[in-house]
């Protein structure tokens, strides 16, 4: 019995509920939300340490043993993601302190961020299919509110698209769960895995797995990403950064869980489809990233490219590639948050969204410019930074499995990432300065410090690969051998 596993979901929920009563006390709202995230960082680091010593942890809610009750399961994969979520959320909160309007902050801004984080953490930790659905909904309902915050015209237009697409995909999710339950009679992940292995993955189950794939592809932006660039470019900066860093990653996590733990018996059907989708996503994301001149749209298409890249690792499905995907997933959460924060800061200081209307920013804001340069290097995968190891391992896995087309697409997409962001750097940071000394908007500490911390995080992640490898290897091992997960959930009492 490990009540501590419920904490990463419980603390943000409790803080969010309590803050409903103090909507006009902005200071209290800010600091208690930040304290909740920092407490989560500590707790998750401790959980990660515990998993190394005692194996996978689980908590049966109400003492009902699996497969009868709902449970939370923390393996290294989910604990790593929860840890990264907490760090990113804490930093985005710090950015929100100095960038969010006061009238928003009084309209339950911080409670909704807390609920969003609780939903994300719950999705990572749950060991039950329907509970995953519920946590998805917690996260999505909070994100519906956050995307429409402020009620400007563009936000209302994009939030309608976002809500409709997500309601439809949640409905598909529910149907897929209903079919799974009808076919197998259980919803516990480990028990489902056992039953599928016993019966064999019949064509019916493969079809259900493809419905799941559609659902998670809609949530993660794998090929079905058409809602993503619009809805990620309208909300306030801190929220866009949280969305870009967290929301699609939950879909990716669910895909990894479902296709490594449950539906791994027919890889030549399911994993081939994932591979094709990932390849197409890389191509289309690359085209989108170079096609636009709006800095927020460029950042959004970079999210799409990263989704394709991470899922190349799942499509290849060798342990090395999985390891690479996990590294890249963690790296991408941190760096995408940074990219969105930088894009938002550029827009805040210039008042323009198009890159060709900004010029010579490096003279006014040198620190911002060089951090942007670091992000470019990190995303392109230049060695001392965090994107490198993930790309190398995914590439190695693809070579081992002989998936040369995916390999080529994955690495060519890196060039497109580099080109699209370099273009932003060259046109808006270099060149003639268009902001005169008098018009210069001073850079707030609250804007630049979160960016510095995230950039440092990217460095630390790149240099500290070796200590981190222990955890990532463990995570990849559980993904590669579902029996470890099943034993920990069903047979360990």
């Amino acid at each position, binding site marked *: 019995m490990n*009540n501590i596993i419920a904490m990463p979901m*419980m603390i943000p929920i409790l803080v969010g*509920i309590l803050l*409903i*009563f103090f909507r006009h006390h902005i200071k209290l709202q800010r600091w208690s939300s930040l304290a909740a995230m920092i407490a989560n960082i500590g707790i998750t680091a401790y959980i990660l340490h515990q998993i190394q010593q005692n194996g996978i942890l689980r908590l049966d*809610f*109400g*003492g009902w043993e699996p497969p009868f009750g709902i449970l939370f399961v923390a393996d290294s994969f989910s604990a790593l993601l929860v840890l990264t979520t907490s760090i990113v959320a804490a930093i985005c909160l710090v950015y929100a302190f100095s960038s969010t309007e006061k009238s928003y902050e009084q309209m339950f801004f911080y409670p909704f961020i807390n609920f969003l984080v609780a939903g994300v953490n719950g999705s990572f930790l749950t060991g039950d299919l329907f509970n995953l659905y519920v946590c998805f909904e917690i996260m999505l309902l909070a994100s519906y509110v956050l995307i429409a915050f402020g009620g400007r015209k563009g936000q209302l237009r994009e939030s309608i698209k976002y809500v409709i697409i997500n309601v439809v995909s949640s409905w598909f999710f529910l149907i897929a769960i209903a079919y799974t339950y009808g076919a197998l009679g259980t919803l516990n992940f480990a028990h489902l895995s056992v039953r599928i292995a016993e019966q064999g993955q019949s064509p019916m189950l493969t079809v259900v797995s493809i419905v799941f794939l559609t659902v998670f592809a809609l949530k993660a932006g794998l090929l079905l990403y058409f809602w993503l660039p619009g809805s990620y470019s309208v909300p306030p900066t801190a929220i866009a950064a949280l969305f870009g860093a967290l929301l699609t990653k939950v879909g990716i996590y669910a895909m990894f869980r479902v296709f490594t733990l449950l539906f791994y018996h027919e890889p030549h059907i399911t994993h081939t489809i994932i591979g094709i989708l990932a390849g197409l996503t890389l191509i289309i994301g690359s085209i989108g990233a170079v096609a636009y001149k709006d800095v927020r749209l460029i950042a959004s298409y970079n999210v799409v490219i990263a989704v394709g890249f991470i899922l190349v690792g799942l499509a290849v499905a060798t342990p090395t590639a999985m390891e690479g995907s996990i590294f890249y997933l963690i790296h991408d959460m941190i760096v995408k948050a940074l990219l969105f924060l930088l894009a938002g800061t550029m827009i805040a200081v210039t008042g323009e969204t198009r890159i060709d209307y900004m010029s010579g920013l490096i003279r006014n804001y040198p620190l911002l410019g060089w951090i942007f340069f670091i992000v470019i290097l990190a995303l392109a995968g230049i060695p001392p930074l965090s994107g490198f190891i993930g790309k190398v391992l995914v590439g190695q896995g693809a070579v081992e499995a002989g998936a040369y087309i995916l390999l080529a697409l994955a690495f060519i997409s890196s060039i497109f990432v580099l080109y699209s962001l370099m273009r932003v750097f060259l046109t808006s940071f270099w060149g003639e300065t268009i902001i005169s000394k008098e018009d210069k908007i001073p850079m707030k500490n609250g804007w630049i410090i979160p960016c510095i911390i995230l950039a440092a995080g990217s460095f630390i992640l790149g240099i500290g690969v070796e200590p981190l490898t222990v955890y990532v290897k463990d995570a990849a091992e559980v993904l590669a051998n579902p029996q470890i997960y099943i034993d920990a959930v069903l047979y360990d009492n």
Partner: protein
Amino acid sequence: MKQVKPNDVMLQTFARMLIFIILAFSIYLLLAGHNSPGGGFIGGLMTASAILILYLAFDMKTIRKSIPIDFVKIIGIGLLFASLTGVVSMLFGFPYLTQFFDYFHIPLLGEVELTTALPFDLGVYFVVVGSALTIILTIAEDDN
């Protein structure tokens, strides 16, 4: 044509009598949930509809004065009830959301089984009442 001031005597008199029956039935549903159909959700919806009948029969200002409650806070209270019943079991070293129950002798009712599922259900009840009324009243006041 002369504007005729509508007279809702029938509606208002019936509303006064009806809402006692509806409220009593909603509380019954809330408490009966453990052993027969009912529970926090349906009980909460029915309480909300009872209060809604008052809003339909009288004008907004009168009811706001006689029920001076901020329904957003009711949602918060309900969420607190539900989540704290889970946390309390944690404090005593049981898994999160463990249910406790015992038999008590209560005068008039006799032997009664009381469980911690009741505060949880009460939380659901408050959240449903609060959110249903918040939605309806926010839309009703939308034009000004």
